[in-house]
């Protein structure tokens, strides 16, 4: 039994869009389009009566200024009654985890019976900002009373004010980019380039296998283009079936050209995609006639100083989640670790090993990870829950773990149980 308080929460099903490298086949879709697509397909696959949904919760890390609450746009799909409340969350790369665990809490508390949770990100469609000076001028001009005053305000615009500002993937508190942090972790934990490349290769190989045998593609709702002549996307487009260590070795490090080890090959790519997971109270699942894939046994979050090892918080979140679950590391039959960078995965594993936990790679990321599949920030947690729950059913595994590191020095860990 779960040691969490309240009602038991079941994972009924999950699905996602294909995960595709930013700027490629999904580039014309906005994050909200991807989120709605995943949610709608989940409805189709489960034949769920849309009116049964009590709440929609979605995660997104870089929201569009035009769609600030993406979850509400999902709950306003025409399939749903318009009366389903919805909120969006941001716990950086663990945002979908946060959406799912928030859903868990609402159900456990008895505030809801059925919740659709998930996440979405389009890194093809990131908000590009106007320069601060241009923004100031536009605001002033909008307040101008006369045409003359308006023209006078506009006259202050200089050419350099027109240069747009793109958001950077860097820590606001330290200015360090995520890649630099991964580089720091590789150095501090003495993780070699070869080890990183090997992990990345493993990720691709496992993902390619999961794609070939249909375990991964079963989770994917093929993306059907709205315009004729555009290709259908039925699988993730970052997975390389033919990469080799030799090829990877040729790449130059990105963040530290001289002594660095982090390359484009052993890091997760910028990705577009969305995921959705259907959660229900145990009673609701029974009442609607669903056989749950798994139950949420426990979860925990943790944070570390971003200036230290930015992506090492899982080493604190996982023990907490295991303790709350009342189980031990060795009880886990499957583990999904989010792969922001190979150096981060190997650092996390090193941290786990330091606790005396035995690392059994055979049960870790058995269908590859974010390095191969891609990492739409807000969506990854939904993919992990879906993949883990499905694989736990296939292998009849009792306990499974999800570990996700996140920007800001944070981490989220979730323990699922099969029965």
């Amino acid at each position, binding site marked *: 039994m779960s040691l969490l308080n309240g009602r038991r929460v079941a994972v009924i099903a999950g699905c996602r869009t294909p995960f595709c490298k930013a700027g490629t086949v999904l580039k014309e879709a906005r994050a909200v389009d991807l989120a709605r697509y995943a949610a709608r*397909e989940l409805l189709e696959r489960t034949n769920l009566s849309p009116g049964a949904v009590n709440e929609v919760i979605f995660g997104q890390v870089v929201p569009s200024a035009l769609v600030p609450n993406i979850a509400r746009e999902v709950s306003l799909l025409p399939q749903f009654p318009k009366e389903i409340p919805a909120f969006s969350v941001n716990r950086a790369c663990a945002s979908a985890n946060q959406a799912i665990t928030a859903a868990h809490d609402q159900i456990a508390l008895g505030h809801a019976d059925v919740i659709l949770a998930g996440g979405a990100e389009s890194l093809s469609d990131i908000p590009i900002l106007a320069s601060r000076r241009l923004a100031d001028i536009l605001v002033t001009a909008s307040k101008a009373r006369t045409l003359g005053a308006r023209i006078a305000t506009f006259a202050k615009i200089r050419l350099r004010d027109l240069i747009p500002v793109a958001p950077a993937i860097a820590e606001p508190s330290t200015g360090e980019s995520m890649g630099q942090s991964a580089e720091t972790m590789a150095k501090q934990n003495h993780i070699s380039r070869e080890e990183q490349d090997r992990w990345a290769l493993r990720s691709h190989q496992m993902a390619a296998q999961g794609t070939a045998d249909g375990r991964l593609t079963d989770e994917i709702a093929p993306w059907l283009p*709205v315009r004729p002549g555009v290709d259908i996307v039925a699988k993730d487009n970052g997975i390389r079936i033919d990469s080799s260590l030799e090829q990877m070795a040729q790449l130059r490090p990105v963040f530290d050209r001289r002594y660095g080890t982090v390359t484009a090959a052993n890091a997760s790519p910028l990705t577009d995609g969305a995921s959705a997971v259907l959660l229900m109270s145990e009673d609701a699942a029974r009442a609607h006639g669903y056989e749950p894939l798994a139950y949420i046994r426990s979860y925990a979050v943790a944070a570390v100083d971003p200036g230290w090892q930015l992506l090492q918080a899982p080493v604190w979140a996982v023990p907490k989640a295991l303790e709350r679950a009342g189980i031990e590391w060795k009880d886990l039959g499957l583990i999904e670790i989010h792969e922001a960078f190979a150096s981060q995965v190997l650092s996390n594993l090193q941290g786990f090993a330091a606790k005396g936990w035995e690392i059994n790679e055979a049960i870790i990321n058995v269908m590859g990870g974010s390095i191969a599949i891609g990492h739409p920030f807000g969506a990854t947690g939904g993919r992990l829950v879906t993949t883990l729950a499905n694989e736990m059913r296939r292998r009849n595994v009792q306990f499974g773990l999800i570990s996700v590191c996140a920007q800001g020095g944070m981490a989220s860990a979730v323990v699922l149980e099969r029965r």
Partner: protein
Amino acid sequence: MPSITWDVRDGIAVVTLNKTDSPVNVISQSVKDEVYAMLTALERDARVRAVAFFSGKKDNFIAGADIEEFVTLKTAAEAEQLSRDGQAMLDRVAAFPKPIAVGIHGSCLGGGLEFALACHYRVATDHPKTQLGLPEIQLGILPGAGGCQRLPRLIGARAALDIILAGKSERAPKAFRLGLVDELVPPAILQDITIAAAKRLADRGPMRRKRQGGLLGLLLDGNPIGRLLVFRAARKQVLAQTKGNYPAPLAALEAVRHGLGHGLQAGLQREAQLFGQLAVSDVSRKLVQIFFATTALKKDRGAADAPPPVEVKRLAIVGTGFMGAGIAGTAVVQAGVDVRMKDADLPRVAKGIATARAIVDERLTRRRLTKFEHARLVALLSGGADYAGFGAAELVIEAVFEELTVKQQVLKECEAALPASAVFATNTSTIPIARIAEAARRPEQVIGMHFFSPVARMPLLEVIPSSRTAPQAISTAVAFGRRMGKTAIVVKDTPGFWVNRILGPYMNEAAHLLLSGVGPADIDRAMVQFGFPVGPITLLDEVGLDVAQHAGEVLQTAFGERLAPPAALAALVKDGRLGRKAEKGFFVYTKGKKGGVDEAIYPLLGVQPNGGIPSAEIVQRLTCAMLNEAARAVGEGVVRSPRDGDIGAIFGFGFPPFRGGPLRYLDDLGADRVYADLQRLAERLGARFAPCEVIVEQARARTRFYS
């Protein structure tokens, strides 16, 4: 209980029309009496300075004049008097010493709009249900209560003729742009703003309106020479569209022209006179009968004692070709249902969704939808290569390849995925429903829904129950067809059903004519002049010769030599002349545009085009072939009533509406005459013309389809 009530608030009489014993407001004799009584009372009432007039019905202002009163008219003089009475009442309204403002929400049509036009100020809600129009032309008459006079005076001759001659309704925003209404407001403040307008008119006197249409309006509408051009162009357009078969548009044109040339009173007089002539004309009678038939069909559940239909919230479609996609797109646009499409592979599904989406997109392009409505509707379309989502569907329509085993396979797969209560409809034109249902575990849930292509445009749906179909499956299919904007007739599960059955001998006869050396263009011209929207040869090209050939074979197999298509047509199919879709048929096609007759067909058919035969003979052969088969099919009970048969022919392939449908036409010609014609044709051309038993019997007993 009076229909018109009012109370006086602060100098304004706030009047409500809420016709008793009627779901909508119509202007009947009793309403007219009450209007007079109201005007008399309000004129005398010293407290009243102005009037604000509203409807008490939901989403309906005034739907028009009472059509039931109209059909009892016997003579032109009676009808003219009815028109004069209406005009007199509205003259009284227009000349009322206290200003009258109307607040319009919902349909404001025909006599309702004429009433609004006679008032002094019009406020309309910006709600989509608010539609203004003069649909009289569709009933073969003209707006006879001053509409032909007041509308052109208000919005100019061009815009007025657009509305009057097409008989179409405009949404309120368009009506506002045209100057038809003075203000456009949200429904919540309609009453307040209308009352305020009435007050304003009382305080400041009548308002002056600007001429509509800017410079072009001045040049064309504002002077006699410009108007001459407008009338000439309109007349030309009317003649091109009606081929002279419909007198009403020309009469309306004359009423407008006369009024603008000779003044309001002379115009009203001419309008009433023309109304009188039209109202008792045969064409108008036929159009009114069609109107009543379609109205009755809208209330018909499709089977005696059928339970209420199941409400379809989610429609599943198997087969995402042109037909399936057309059904999907139309269902989304018209019924707003959630649509899940399925086909064998994703590329087909994607293509189907794109085709369906184009139907929704077209509504956006034509501004029938806002971009937000459009976004909502396209989000209703989805699909996959499996049966995901079918478990929540109330209705599935399959439109897969026209082959029994394929359709039965799809039926079995669907039954496994669908809830037990779901209806399985098959869109077939040639396979008996009972045969398909043989594969069913739940044959009572299996039914035929025969749509016509292109689905978005063709208004008819044939619903075909098999002998085992449950009544609620029938009512569900009929009701959903209606939500898709179709007129649904329930027909018997016999080969060709109704439409293709009676079209078969007509098309065959066209082919016989071709083979006797009559030119395709001559045949088409004769039938278009008869009143068909396109001739049979063009129709063959549009439908596809292969499709027509297959349909012909089915009929031949079922009914023998009588319905055998001439063998020579097969040569054209073999030559790849499949019609428009192949850009190669009887006519030449260049970049999708139809040109003249393709001379290459003559050697293929083995004929020399000769001088041809008179149009009248072409018409007689083609119509006799159809009438004979139609009468026979009615005798077999293929349609439930002559009404359904006529509506099916009019909406299915455009049998001339002014002739009332094939069975009305047969009644008009007289069974004895048709019998004699058929006998003569049979002697000359063969047994295919042998009169059927129904006609023989009718000719003998002097009976008719309609009493």
